């Protein structure tokens, strides 16, 4: 039976058996909400009129046709998530259009005369992209292995009482705000590094280590959830065959939890890429490609810290370039998120799900 999209949407919004005048009132409510949204986007001052209509019809409908309106309102709330994502994407692109139109691919290419000189109209995001890559690689090298080992400890090795103390501890410590890390890095680490690494402190290495420590609890929490959900029967079977606990972990639990563990590492990488304040506080000055490229003791702003530090004093074109940087960030992190969901789906199909 072919039914139009509209009828489907209507049915899912109102439900199968709407009461009396409910369908009319619900349609008016939905229409007024849509109008309010459109108004807010186009002419914000007049958005209040549709909002008042919405409030009035909702009040009446809630009193008279509560179940229909409950369904409608929750559908609206669900649509809000998708609409928010859509709005973010659209407005990022709209604001970046001037920069893309004027500079196009030059934004990603090096220039003979330097990289960032807003007064001369010189913009290149290449050093920021490279800085993001270096910092994320260093952070991943720390958060990945240590995070998985920590998760292994909590999930499999630690005795019950130690586990009950350590797991909430790590989750609480995951909440330390990034600006606090940034402040510690700013006040303490730069001086410490100066005396021990013969460098002036602001360096990819320090920023990478700090970001790695920040992403570590995320990786530990998610990987621990994955490792704990390996079925007891698989591990018990392995132990019954005479394998030691370590052999069971290595050959049974980790491969079985592989999708969750890789999702954890990708999540940690995503967090490392999006980290702004710690990097901005540690590598405060300058933007440039390190020479040679792998010099981890050099410093440069990353995409995130570039946006945070330059936005306040930026001209219109600079603002637009910063939005282009934002699109890059958004694209990279969304790509990572989609990749991790894909991996989980593949693993689920391969290892047989439901457990």
């Amino acid at each position, binding site marked *: 039976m072919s039914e139009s999209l509209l009828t489907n949407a209507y049915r899912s919004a109102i439900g199968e058996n709407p009461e009396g005048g409910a369908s009319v009132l619900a349609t008016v409510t939905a229409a007024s909400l849509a109008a309010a949204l459109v108004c807010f986007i186009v002419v914000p001052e007049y958005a209040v009129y549709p909002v008042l209509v919405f409030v009035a019809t909702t009040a009446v409908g809630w009193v008279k046709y509560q179940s229909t309106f409950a369904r409608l309102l929750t559908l609206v709330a669900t649509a809000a*998530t998708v609409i928010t994502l859509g709005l973010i994407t659209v407005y990022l692109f709209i604001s970046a259009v001037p920069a893309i139109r004027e500079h196009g691919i030059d934004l990603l290419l090096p220039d003979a005369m330097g990289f960032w000189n807003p007064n001369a109209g010189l913009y290149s995001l290449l050093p920021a992209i490279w800085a993001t890559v270096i910092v994320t690689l260093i952070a991943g090298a720390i958060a990945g292995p240590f995070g998985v080992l920590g998760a292994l*400890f909590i999930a499999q090795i630690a005795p019950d009482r130690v586990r009950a103390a350590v797991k909430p501890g790590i989750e609480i410590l995951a909440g*330390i705000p990034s600006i606090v890390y940034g402040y510690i890095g700013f006040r303490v680490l730069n001086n410490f590094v100066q005396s*021990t690494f013969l460098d002036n402190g602001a360096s990819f290495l320090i920023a990478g280590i700090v970001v790695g420590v920040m992403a570590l609890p995320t990786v530990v929490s998610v990987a621990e959830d994955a490792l704990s959900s390996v079925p007891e029967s698989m591990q018990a079977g392995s132990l019954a065959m005479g394998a030691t606990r370590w052999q069971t972990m290595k050959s049974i639990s980790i491969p079985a939890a592989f999708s969750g563990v890789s999702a954890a590492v990708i999540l940690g990488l995503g967090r490392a890429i999006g980290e*702004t304040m710690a990097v901005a506080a540690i590598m405060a000055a300058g933007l440039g490609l390190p020479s040679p490229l792998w010099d981890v003791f050099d410093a440069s702003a990353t995409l995130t810290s570039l946006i945070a530090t330059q936005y306040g004093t930026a001209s219109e074109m600079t603002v637009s370039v910063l939005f282009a940087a934002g699109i890059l960030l958004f694209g990279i*992190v969304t790509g990572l998120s989609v990749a991790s969901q894909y991996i989980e789906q593949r693993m689920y199909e391969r290892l047989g799900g439901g457990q």
Partner: protein
Amino acid sequence: MSGREEAPLVQTASTAFERVADGILGLTVLLFVLAFGALAGILPLGVRLAGLTLVTVFGIALGLLGSILLGIAFVSRGGYVETDPDRSAGLGAGLGFGVVGLVVGGVFGAGITDGVLWIGLSLALGLGMVALTVLPREDIGSTVPPALVALLVGGLLVSGLLDIGWQWQPQAGSFSGGFTAEATVPLLVAFSALLSGWALAKARGNFGAPGRERGAFFVVYLIAFGILTVMVAIVAFVTSRGAPYAFRGFEIVAQFPFVKWPFVMRPFIPLTDRITGILPAIVGTVWLVIGATVFAVPLGVGAAVFLTEYAEQGRFTRLVETATSALWSTPSVVFGLFGAAFLIPRLGGDRSLLAGMLVLGFMLLPLVLITSREAIKSVPDEYRDASAALGVTKWETIRSVVLPAAMPGIITGGILGVGRIAGETAPLILVLGSTLNSTEAVHVIRGFEFVMHPPFITNEAILTESAALPTQIWAIISAGVSGSPARGWATAFILLCIVLSFYAVGIASRTYFRRKLDYE
């Protein structure tokens, strides 16, 4: 039957060999801890213990460890102690020690010879180590390479070749930083101690599979406690720097509000020698959190209800799931950009508290949605079936059965989400600005007033900039030398207290409710 001998299935009495191995393992851990203490600057390298500098003590300890490991190799291979080694230590360990050999060879080669000879030396040493680990029996392959590393490092330290004041700026690779003794000695000592401890733990387990298990567990325990120590040290460090300044002038008084806490209750007052505070920042953060919660929680809970109760699993739900996941992993600074591009032009064109509230609300939305969805899904179907059997309609069931049952989970998710957004800085910098020394807190409730033209209701207070705790810290950082370090530490301490207590309450309530539901 008489005369039957009973052989124990598992050896339970510990032999002298095992007790000695345990003691030395403890020494290894001590060495590891001391090395990190030296790295952190708590133990200066020049401190004297029984007339010898710490460097020399490290060197002697490592030399001892190396010799003991060689002794264990001899004793085990010679059959003097009953062990059960495999035929080889395995390719994994081989590769690990091969890399160590490569690095040592490369470093020494670069130091001794010029040109590309160092590559040859590096490869030779690397392959040699691989052969030494993989080819002999496991008890030699696991103990001799770590012993060599420990003896090498110990030798460098004792002989004074690697002592306080040593520096090296490698030309090869042209890094712009260098290595000093303060960093290199502790790291080398910790690394050697780790390797020796791994080998000792293997020996303690009599090699073979149980030995490998002990070795692996030793390393994992060490790393796990290292991680915990780092995280606790961070909190302790901020507390030690910030608490004294934050609690200046604190006293308990007789009438409401029963405490006099200047740092938290007073704004900044310029040109005075009274103790001034960060009240505007705290008030700002409180209003941001309230606004974000009022915006995000109804939307998130409503969406969760629709997705679990009303919607059919299909394209729409998958689309929403992808959108939620994408929103959840979006960097915070991108939310700030969105706020600047979409919200600010429509809310008066300037940075404002309202824009900050909405941006934080957008960040809170996916968190609330995900946790509420989990909470609602975990309400057992029996509840809904029983309610339907009594003739209750779907919405009534949701309202009176499902939501109350899921409420603990929803509240927990909300608390954890609030803890996260209270500490967010990057989006606020873009939409709220960072005020350094705010002299007056916003008065939101007093600010509401009706006007004649649309939108008929305005609030001066939330349409202006405001201070907030995270942006205040950023302002202190960007003020550079003119920012007061003590105020910065104290503000960081207060922010840490607030955020961590939200997280602690959230996690405690989640554990409590999980236990209650499991019990059922």
